[in-house]
């Protein structure tokens, strides 16, 4: 149940797998994404509502063959240059897009969590998305005859989350903004969670968000694992990192040099963070 991050990624992510690193601005599992890059995983089908910097990094480093997503940008800053380069110029390799709206992807994750083959929504009406994505279809209500949008369930081979706490049994507690993290976790065949803290026992949860130990495959103790995203109660989002990334990622050479220095040549997330301290100082 308890792994080092390197072991968890090594043991559970195979080349070609479908992998969702979820979290919505909050609790984005950066450390895990970096370890995927370090281990030079290839051909991944990456899934995420809002591909963030860590997806820009994985795509730019050639880990991905396909992307299922609904909004791919640097929030509040602008483009993800590596994602754009992959779509516009197939660099470093072509990237197949499976493109949705947030509502569509949310319905797909919910269907996945419930092990239904499809999700239903009132959505996509009047847009060009269904014409571009054969995964957006329609279903007819057997009671009213209405036609509704349908999306296939998303069931990632592996979902990776970052959370605040896990206890010794492997129960995981998350608080704050969730996005579709819980549904992505419940929809996965394998669930890896990096956490800020390991505790003996979680406090009584009542109606809070908990992933019970028997749906969690691997727990990794990884403090700071969401940086430069944030973990409520632990550290805040490093907005300046997101702003600096716009420059780092704009040109291929600058990007590769940064990734080489900060990710490939660092042994783990602690070394990554230490390296940033030096670079800042």
């Amino acid at each position, binding site marked *: 149940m308890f792994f080092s991050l390197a072991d968890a990624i090594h043991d559970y992510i195979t080349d070609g797998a479908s992998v969702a690193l979820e979290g919505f601005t909050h609790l984005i599992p950066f450390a895990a994404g970096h370890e995927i890059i370090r281990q030079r995983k290839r051909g991944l089908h990456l899934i995420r509502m809002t591909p963030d910097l860590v997806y820009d990094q994985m795509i730019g480093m050639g880990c991905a063959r396909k992307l299922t997503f*609904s909004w791919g940008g640097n929030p*509040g800053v602008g483009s993800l240059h590596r994602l754009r380069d992959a779509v516009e110029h197939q660099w470093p390799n072509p990237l197949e897009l499976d493109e949705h709206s947030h509502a569509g992807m949310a319905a797909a994750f919910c269907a996945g969590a419930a092990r239904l083959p499809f999700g239903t929504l009132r959505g996509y009406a009047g847009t060009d998305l269904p014409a571009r994505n054969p995964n957006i279809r329609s279903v007819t209500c057997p009671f009213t005859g209405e036609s509704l949008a349908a999306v296939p369930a998303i069931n990632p081979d592996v979902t990776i989350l970052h959370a605040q706490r896990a206890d010794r049994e492997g129960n995981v507690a998350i608080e704050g903004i969730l996005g*579709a993290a819980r549904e992505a976790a419940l929809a996965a065949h394998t669930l890896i969670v990096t956490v800020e803290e390991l505790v003996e026992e979680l406090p009584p949860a009542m109606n809070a968000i908990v992933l019970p130990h028997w749906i969690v495959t691997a727990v990794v103790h990884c403090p700071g694992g969401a940086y430069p995203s944030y973990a409520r109660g632990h550290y*805040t*989002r490093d907005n300046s990192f997101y702003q600096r990334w716009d420059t780092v990622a704009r040109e291929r050479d600058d990007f590769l040099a940064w990734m080489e220095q900060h990710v490939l040549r660092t042994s783990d997330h602690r070394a990554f963070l230490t390296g940033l301290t030096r670079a800042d100082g």
Partner: protein
Amino acid sequence: MSGCSRNEWMTVAAARLLRDKSVCFVGIGLPSAACNLARLTHAPGLVLIYESGTIGTRPQVLPLSIGDGELAETAAYVVPLPEVFSYYLQAGRVDIGFLGAAQIDRYGNLNSTVIGPYDLPTTRLPGAGGAPEIALHARQVFVMAKASKRSFVERLDFCTSAGYLDGYGARARGGAPGGGPRAVITDFGMLAPHPQTDELQLVALFADASVEEACAAVGWPLALADAIDTIAPPTPHELDTLRALFARTREAHACPVHLPLAPEGLP
């Protein structure tokens, strides 16, 4: 009010459209500034929803991203994102959707997906996000976008979010639950749909803007309403509140963030 920028004027004009106690689904950027300005001035009971799942949020500073911690800490409550879209937006419980876009056409249809062909775009934009369903379900939609012939276009490269489709009641006939774009706030003034044709027409100008400026900034022959209003300049209170909001935001975002690096030897 002299000395205010067009950006500021746009934000103030947009804020004034929001009635107190409306439930408002907020996009990031200009819409977020306008909604929070309204909340801090004439509409303290405005209910703001951000798609991250934060409901009834009252941020003291503007979020850089739609899921900033500030939004959660000041929210009435935080729900999983699927619930925001199904139990609130799709359920018809959102009065106002506030959107931006890279391109808009004369019927208020929006593009935030690609410039150029979808399969080999010249510019890959971030994509749909929550916009298609906000545009579909919110009772009214407001759009904020700076005008140019590249953004206010005759023909969209891609339709990400439906406005009035081909106009002349096409949206209503298609059964869209929400009312569609009721106002487009841009940097010369405001457009609104013609009651019969649904075509966006010039309905109001900033005091220092002209019809010629408006027509020059729009990529289709811009129709003019019978009467074109003048949008009153920001009051000192509006402008002070907005500038104070931006000042607080700059200050908060300039705060250095400590790397979450525990001392060696600690877990």
